[in-house]
């Protein structure tokens, strides 16, 4: 029972959500028989400069000085190991379901690179997980899935697991703690203000 989908790209980043997305794709998506129909597992590696920026503490002297070749080489090797681990995990899942898939690795900004790859491969469908960050982190880090759903040239499936529910509680918790913190801050300010007035 061959399907109608030609090229399906599943974007993985090592998170559980993306592995879930891969499983969803294999369970629900019907490809045309090969060679037209193909499942492509895409992993986007962050470029070394970004990797340094995210963990400045792990680099002695704490600078994003990627000009030092030894550092760059070490970072690249580390990235390569992460990529291999992610792809191995993805391929294990494929083997469980008896599905053959090709892997594809690109280096760059995840959201732009995913859309580029989808464009160049003329993909019919993009499947990705939802990182389930709370609303605050999403504001600063941006959401890859949101960007891709707006800019990809093909339909995008954002797969959520039970994690979707957990995210809501996490959001609620983070919002209540933030509200509590703000309240404390306000009270503290009022106290110091009244003390200052008394002093006057």
């Amino acid at each position, binding site marked *: 029972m061959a*399907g*109608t989908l030609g090229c399906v790209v599943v974007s993985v980043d090592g998170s559980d959500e993306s592995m879930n997305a891969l499983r969803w794709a294999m369970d629900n998506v019907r490809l045309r028989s090969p060679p037209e129909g193909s499942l492509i597992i895409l992993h986007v590696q962050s470029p070394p400069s970004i990797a340094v920026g995210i963990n400045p503490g792990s680099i002695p002297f704490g600078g994003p000085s990627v000009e030092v070749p030894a550092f760059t080489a070490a970072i690249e090797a580390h990235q390569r190991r992460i990529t291999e681990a992610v792809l191995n995990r993805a391929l294990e899942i494929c083997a469980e379901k008896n599905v053959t898939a090709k892997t594809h690795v690109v280096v760059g900004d995840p959201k732009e690179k995913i859309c580029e790859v989808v464009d160049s491969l003329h993909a019919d469908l993009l499947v990705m997980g939802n990182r389930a960050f709370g609303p605050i982190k999403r504001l600063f880090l941006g959401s890859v899935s949101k960007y891709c759903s*707006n800019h*990809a040239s*093909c339909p995008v499936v954002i797969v959520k697991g039970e994690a979707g529910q957990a995210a809501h509680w996490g959001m609620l918790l983070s919002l209540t703690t933030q509200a509590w913190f703000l309240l404390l801050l306000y009270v503290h300010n009022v106290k110091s203000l009244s003390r200052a007035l008394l002093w006057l």
Partner: protein
Amino acid sequence: MAAEKPVMIVGIDDSEHSFYALDRALEHFFVPHAPNFPFKLFVVYAKPSAASTAGFAGAGAAEVLPFLEADLRRVAAGVVDKAKQLIISKSVNDVTLEVIEGDARNVLCEAVEKHHASVLVLGSHGYGAIKRAVLGSVSDYCAHHAHCSVMIVKKPKTKH
């Protein structure tokens, strides 16, 4: 005897984009599996209410409302008809069409809850950042808030 089939909900409005999304959903998830479709399909049309549409009209709103209501009902009938034709042309059965009045965002998320859907399919108008900020985006809202996987289908722009 048959296991409960997972539920797919396709949200439509009166735009071409959402019919393209319905078309894609049927093509990719139903047509290849005929006649054993893997999903139970619900097509939900969120009918705007006359009061919300006339919200900004102000003083003259009361007179306009009945005409607005009749017009909206006509549009809804047209949408349901068109959807039915598309579904029949793809030879898909076991489809339920629903027209629910209200704001599309809430209607679709509630429909997901009600039917315990596993996939929600939406078209996207493909607004840019500014339009999105002003008009709001149903697909963005549902992608965040729906408790199920969301498929967002953009109609490809015709190349010049």
